[in-house]
């Protein structure tokens, strides 16, 4: 009888230890997530404790996408607000970014697939532009246009994305994508080359599916 009581006590102690560890882990993650979102104004990669791919945490998650109006390749201003009511994928890329060229065909295919349901992609070039030198500016813009043409991009391509760097939590690494729902709220963000299925999952999230 005495032995049984001791064994029962030991088992309860083990269970209590694991419950405490699990609770403490959960609490820590909650606090860390809140701290990250409250204190950072720049996006960051968070290492996966299990060794998987790092998670990109954006300060914009759950917040309205910062408004902008940038020139497209024809010189016309394109505002994010003009896409209200649509789910929008804001994709920052650059002519020198090799992984951007890998994901662009995926974006085109997904835009063709989900476009009729109210989805649009905005490709924003983060290439440096020298606006103080008209000739150089024209050459740089031509280079962006040539790159977009070579990739057969059918969606709007905007320039001067670097001016949005602070508003969008830093654009030091490309590609970078923000998924905006029909109400203009950022529901997901991605940094770096991922996969077509992950991009599609976020598009569905932005579309409310």
């Amino acid at each position: 009888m005495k032995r049984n009581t001791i064994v029962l006590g030991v088992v309860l102690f083990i269970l209590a230890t694991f419950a405490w560890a699990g609770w403490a882990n959960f609490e820590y993650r909650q606090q860390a997530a809140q701290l990250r979102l409250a204190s950072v104004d720049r996006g960051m990669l968070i290492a996966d404790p299990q060794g998987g791919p790092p998670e990109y945490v954006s300060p914009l998650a759950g917040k309205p996408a910062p408004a902008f109006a940038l020139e497209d390749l024809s010189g016309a201003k394109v505002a994010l607000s003009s896409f209200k009511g649509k789910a929008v994928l804001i994709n920052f890329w650059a002519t020198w970014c090799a992984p951007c060229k890998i994901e662009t065909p995926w974006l085109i295919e997904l835009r063709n697939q989900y476009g009729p349901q109210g989805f649009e992609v905005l490709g924003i070039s983060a290439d440096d532009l020298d606006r103080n030198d008209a000739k150089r500016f024209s050459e740089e813009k031509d280079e962006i246009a040539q790159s977009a043409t070579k990739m057969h991009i059918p969606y709007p391509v905007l320039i001067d994305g670097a001016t949005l760097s602070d508003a969008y939590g830093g654009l030091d690494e490309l590609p970078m994508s923000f998924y905006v729902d029909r109400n203009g709220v950022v529901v997901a963000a991605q940094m770096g080359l991922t996969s077509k299925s992950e991009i599609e999952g976020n598009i569905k999230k932005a579309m409310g599916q």
Partner: protein
Amino acid sequence: MVHIKATFGLTLVLALGAVSALGQAVKGQGSPAKPGAVEFLYPEQVTVEADKPAVVKLHFRVAEGMHINSHAPKDEFLIPTTLDFPDGTGVKLEKADYPVGGEYSFPGDPGSKLSVYVGQFEIEAHIRAEKGNHLVEAKLRYQACNNAQCFPPRTAAVAVDVIGK
């Protein structure tokens, strides 16, 4: 009694395991450090014959997990690695011989082969120095990526004290 001891021992092991798991979860948080991409290694000082052509081997290292485009990337829009000497330092860069890049493919696109430098590489700088001591602050322009992201083009400082005798 032996049974009780064994149970307590097991409890201790499991409890330590649980605490260790918690510790690991805590340790796993945080953003990885931002990569510096390219570092100039050596030489810091060279002595060459004044007003005569000379070859200086400049050694560089690309940070682990990163690669930079070679001097001859296979895509017209990618930015090549280039070495540049400033004017008016008493040392003229007449030509630079760059190594041939190695092939690299991003995960998810094994078909496309890029030409890149990884790890250590050297550039042979063909220079002509005037007589005297010259601190040359050359620049290496490069554009780096890891296996998922690319970083804007940057320049690495290449400071070499060139003594022309």
